[in-house]
């Protein structure tokens, strides 16, 4: 990041390559459809061009990206006056531009039911679970700070979200 701040374009490209999955899942976790999420991802990286000077701590970058993405996603929702599709998006309605057709990937009824249940979770749970999926890349502590959660409450909250997911899934499949 230090090299990127000094105008090294290749270093900036490496940051984009490494951290775009994080920005993507934060945008999607905020309830944006895939097309809008893509615009937001690019907007966040363009915004970083402006703010790179002010990020003194390389470690703060992931947190800045998460916070900025959430703010931008909210702004887009607000501007759109609620016409941007929110979390109601179900597996059946994912855009046809998806790289993986559902009938190939959702091989089993269980997968379909679980994915459907996932989209019925609260926005906060979807966001938290997506972010903890990425925990290998973005540190847990960073996730906690960006979500304004005490570090120690991530685990218990994740547990509650998983319980909710289990209930929704069981209700869905009727078992």
């Amino acid at each position, binding site marked *: 990041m230090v090299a990127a701040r000094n105008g090294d*374009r290749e270093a*900036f*490209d490496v940051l*984009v*390559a490494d951290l*775009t*999955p994080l920005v*993507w*899942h934060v945008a*999607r976790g905020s309830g944006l*459809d*895939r*097309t*809008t999420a*893509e*615009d937001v*991802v*690019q*907007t966040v*990286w*363009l*915004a*970083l*061009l*402006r703010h790179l*000077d002010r990020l003194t701590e390389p470690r703060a970058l992931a947190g800045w990206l998460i916070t900025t993405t959430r703010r931008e996603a909210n702004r*887009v929702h607000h*501007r*759109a006056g609620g*016409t*941007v599709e929110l979390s109601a998006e179900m*597996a059946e309605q*994912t855009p046809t*531009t*998806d*790289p*993986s057709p*559902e009938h190939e*990937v*959702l091989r089993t009824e269980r*997968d379909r039911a*679980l*994915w459907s249940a*996932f989209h019925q979770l609260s926005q906060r749970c979807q966001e938290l*679970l*997506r972010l*903890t*999926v990425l925990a290998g890349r973005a540190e847990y502590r960073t996730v906690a700070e960006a979500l304004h959660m005490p570090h120690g409450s991530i685990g218990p909250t*994740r*547990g509650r979200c*998983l*319980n909710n*997911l*289990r209930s929704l899934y069981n209700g869905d499949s009727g078992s």
Partner: protein
Amino acid sequence: MRTNQADDELMAEVARLVNVLDPPPPGLVERTQFAVALDDLDRHVELEIAQWADTRPLAGVRGGLPGTITFFVGDLTVMVNVTRTGERQRIDGWLVPAGAHGVEVRVAEHGSAVTTADEGGRFVLTEVPRGTTQLLVRMNAEQSRTVVTPTVDL
């Protein structure tokens, strides 16, 4: 009482579904790298990032059909009409409030085309290659305030 192991197993399934069913779109990294590779970027340029209006018509454009798309930031609104001309395309634009602002259309791997809007805020670019496209507006033809869009596939 659920065990941690059950949570971990469910979490692994969620991770698999999220990664397989909702990965970043192919090419998003490359399109983003193109979008941020702005030549005239220096510390004295006030960069403003525009937002594409109404993603639904835009989605149609992205599906390959020419049409009108709009972007805006602050008080600036720019309408862009895209017409196919053989392998290339013609871009008719109209920016409001009107002014003789510089307009640049960057197309990935095809360089860029530059023009200046007339007093009425209208501009035309012909023979623009198709591809991942980004628009820039340099307000009042000065470099001090530059409006830039996310890319759009035209």
